[in-house]
C-alpha cells in the first residue's frame, strides 16, 4: 500500500514518463475497468435473449443462434454448422432432434433430410439485439406509467424546490431581520437529518392530508430541502450589496429584486441545485417505497424493485428496465459532467 502511495505522490515534470506515472495509469486503468465494466455488462446483457442469458459461461456480446426459413417448414429452423463424415462442414438447419440423432435439412436443397449425430453439430451464432426485452415490459407491464410518474415527480418537485428554496435563501442572504439566526439554525440543524428519521410521522402527516398513494405524497415532503437553501444562500451572499441597493434606488420592488436581479445572478447555483434535485428525486427510494403501495402511482425505482421481486427469473426484462432507469441520468451526466463535478466539489454536498 505504501508503495502505491509513494508512487502517487511523486511529482515529475513533463517529458519522459516516470515509472510512478505508469503506476498511476495502472490504478486509473483498473478503475476504468471496475467502474465502467459493470455498466457496460448490464447494457450488453440487456440485449440478450432469455436463452442467451442462461448460458454459462456467458458470451460477451449478445449472441443468438441463427435461424433460417426453409421451404416446406412453417417455423424458422435453427442453423447448425455440421461436421460431415467425410470431414467437410456444411451449414444445415435442424428439423427436429430425437435423442442423439438430429434430423437436418440443407436450406439450399429443402427436399432431402439428413440424419446427423447431435455432437457433430455446432450452432451458428450471430449478434442479435433482443429489442423485445425493452418493448415487451413497456407494453405488458406498467413501466410506461412508472416512467411517467417518475418524470412528473422529478419535474414538479424540482420546480417547487427551486422556487421555495431560492425565496428562503434570498430572505436569508439579502436581509437582516429578527429571527434570522434562528431560521439559519433550523436550516443547518436539519441538513443531515434524513427522512429516515421521521418516516413514521411524515407518513402520518401525509395520511392526514389524504395524500397516501398520490404522487404529491412523494413531491411535497422533500420540497423544502435544507441543502438547497444553504447552497443558494452561500452563493447569494457573494452577490455585491451594491447591486441590491442600486436596484432599490431604481425603484425595484423586493419581488423584482429577487426575480430580476438575484435569481439571474444565482444561475450557476440554481443549476447545481436543479441537477441535485433531479438526481435526488429520480433516484429517491425509501420514502416512495413507504408511501406508494399501489402500482399505478409507483415510480420507476419502486417499480423496478418490485419487478425484481416478482420477476426473479425474467432477468431479460429486469436488465432492460434497469437500463431505461439509468439512461436519463447517464444523458444528464454526459452533458453536465464537469459542471456537476465542480458543483459538488465546491459545495461538499450531494
Amino acid at each position, binding site marked *: 500500500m505504501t508503495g502505491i502511495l509513494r508512487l502517487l505522490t511523486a511529482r515529475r515534470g513533463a517529458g519522459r514518463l516516470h515509472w510512478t506515472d505508469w503506476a498511476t495509469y495502472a490504478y486509473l486503468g483498473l478503475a476504468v475497468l471496475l467502474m465502467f465494466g459493470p455498466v457496460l*455488462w448490464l447494457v450488453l446483457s440487456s440485449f440478450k435473449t432469455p436463452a442467451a442469458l442462461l448460458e454459462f459461461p456467458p458470451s460477451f456480446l449478445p449472441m443468438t443462434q441463427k435461424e433460417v426459413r426453409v421451404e416446406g417448414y412453417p417455423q424458422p429452423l435453427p442453423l447448425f454448422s455440421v461436421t460431415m463424415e467425410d470431414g467437410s462442414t456444411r451449414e444445415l438447419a435442424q428439423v427436429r432432434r430425437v435423442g442423439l440423432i438430429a434430423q437436418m435439412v440443407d436450406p439450399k436443397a429443402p427436399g432431402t433430410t439428413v440424419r446427423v449425430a447431435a455432437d457433430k453439430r455446432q450452432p451458428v451464432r450471430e449478434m442479435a439485439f433482443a429489442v423485445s426485452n425493452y418493448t415487451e415490459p413497456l407494453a405488458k407491464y406498467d413501466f410506461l406509467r412508472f416512467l411517467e410518474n417518475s418524470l412528473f415527480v422529478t419535474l414538479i418537485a424540482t420546480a417547487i424546490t427551486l422556487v421555495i428554496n431560492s425565496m*428562503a435563501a434570498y430572505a*436569508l442572504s439579502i436581509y437582516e431581520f429578527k429571527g434570522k439566526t434562528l431560521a439559519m439554525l433550523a436550516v443547518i440543524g436539519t441538513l443531515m437529518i434524513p427522512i429516515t428519521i421521521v*418516516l413514521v410521522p411524515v407518513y402520518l402527516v401525509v395520511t392526514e392530508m389524504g395524500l397516501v398513494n398520490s404522487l404529491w405524497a412523494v413531491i411535497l415532503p422533500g420540497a423544502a430541502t435544507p441543502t438547497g437553501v444553504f447552497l443558494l444562500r452561500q452563493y447569494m451572499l457573494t452577490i455585491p450589496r451594491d447591486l441590491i441597493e442600486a436596484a432599490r434606488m431604481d425603484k425595484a420592488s423586493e419581488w423584482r429584486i429577487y426575480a430580476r436581479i438575484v435569481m439571474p445572478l444565482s444561475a450557476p447555483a440554481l443549476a447545481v441545485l436543479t441537477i441535485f434535485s433531479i438526481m435526488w428525486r429520480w*433516484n429517491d427510494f425509501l420514502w416512495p417505497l413507504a408511501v406508494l403501495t399501489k402500482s399505478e402511482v409507483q415510480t420507476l425505482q419502486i417499480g423496478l424493485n418490485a419487478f425484481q421481486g416478482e420477476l426473479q427469473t425474467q432477468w431479460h426484462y429486469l436488465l432492460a428496465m434497469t437500463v431505461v432507469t439509468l439512461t436519463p441520468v447517464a444523458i444528464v451526466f454526459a452533458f453536465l459532467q464537469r459542471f456537476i463535478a465542480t458543483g459538488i466539489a465546491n459545495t461538499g454536498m450531494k
Partner: protein
Amino acid sequence: MTLIAPPRARPRGPSASLLDRFGHAVVRVFEPPFRALQRILGVRRMPYVFLLPNAVFFGLFVFLPIGINLVYSVTGGTALFPSQRPYVGPEQYAYLLDCGSYLDPSTCREDHFWRGVANTLKFTVFQMVAMVLFSLLAALALNRPIRGRGFFRAVFFFPVLLSPVVVALIWKWILQRDGLLNAAVTSLGGQKILFFVDPSWAMFWSVFVSVWAHMGFYTLILLAGLQAIPRDIYEAAEMDGTRPWRVLTRITLPLLWPNLLVVLVLVLIRSVQVFDEVFVLTGGGPGTATQMIVQYIYTTAFANQVQNFGLAAAASVLLGAVLFVLTLLQLFLTRRRAA
C-alpha cells in the same frame, strides 16, 4: 463553499429569448401580490414573506414530524393517529434496549434491532476504511499531471448519480450464481460461489458496492482539497530535496487533513443511514446478516404484518440522536476548516 463558477455569457438564441419571455411572464404574474404585500407590510417585513413557503413545508414535514416522533416513541398500540395511542412512557425504549449482553444480539429481546446495530457498525467501520483509502488514492492519482484527467474524474464520479436500485441490480446481475464473476472464477479453476448465501460475502459485497457507488463523491472533495494546496509549497519541498514519501506524509496529508476529516465524518453519517443499495442487493440477507438499522425501522413500521409505529419511532429517535451528534461534529469541523 461558494466557488461555483460565475455565469458565462449566454448565447442569445431564439430559445434563450423565449425562455426569457417565459421568465418575465412568471415574474409579472407574481408581481402584483408581492407588491401589495410590500405596500402593506413594508420592506422590513418582506423577508418573512419570502421565508414563509419554505418554512411551511419545513414545519409540516420536518419539525412537526420530529415532535410527533417523540410522541410515537412513548406511546403504544397500532393506531397511526397519536391521540388514539395509549401512553406507555419509556416502554418502547426499554424494550429496544433490553439486552442480556450488548455484545451479543441474540441475548436481546428485540434481537433484530441489535443485529441491525451490529451490522450497521460493521458496515460503517469497513466502509470508512475502504472509502477513505480508495478515494484518497483516486484523488492523489487525479491530482498528478496526467493526460485525460477530466475523463478519469468522470470514471470515478458517474456512479454517484446512479440510483441505489440501479447500482444494486447491476451488481446483483454480476454476482448471481451464473454471473460474470462466477464465470471468471470457474475459468480460473474455482468453484462457483453463492455470494448472497454466505454472510461474509454478502457483507463484503454490500460494502464493496457502496464504495463503488459513492467513492467518486469523496474523491472530488479530496481532489478539491489537494488542488487547494499551493504549488509553491511542493516546489519549495523539491528545492529542499524532500523525498516523495516525506512530501506525502509531511506536506500533502497534513494539509489535506481537514478535508480528510470532513470526508470521514460524511462517510460516517451516510454509513449509519445505509439502506437502499444493501436492501435491494441482499434484501438484508442471508437471514439478517446484512440487515441495517434503517431497514429495521422501515420493516417494523411498514413491511411487517403488525405495523409497530412506536417501536420504529423509538429506534429512529435513537438513530436521530446519533446523527445529530455527528452533524454537530461535522459542522464544527467545517467551521474550523473555514476559519
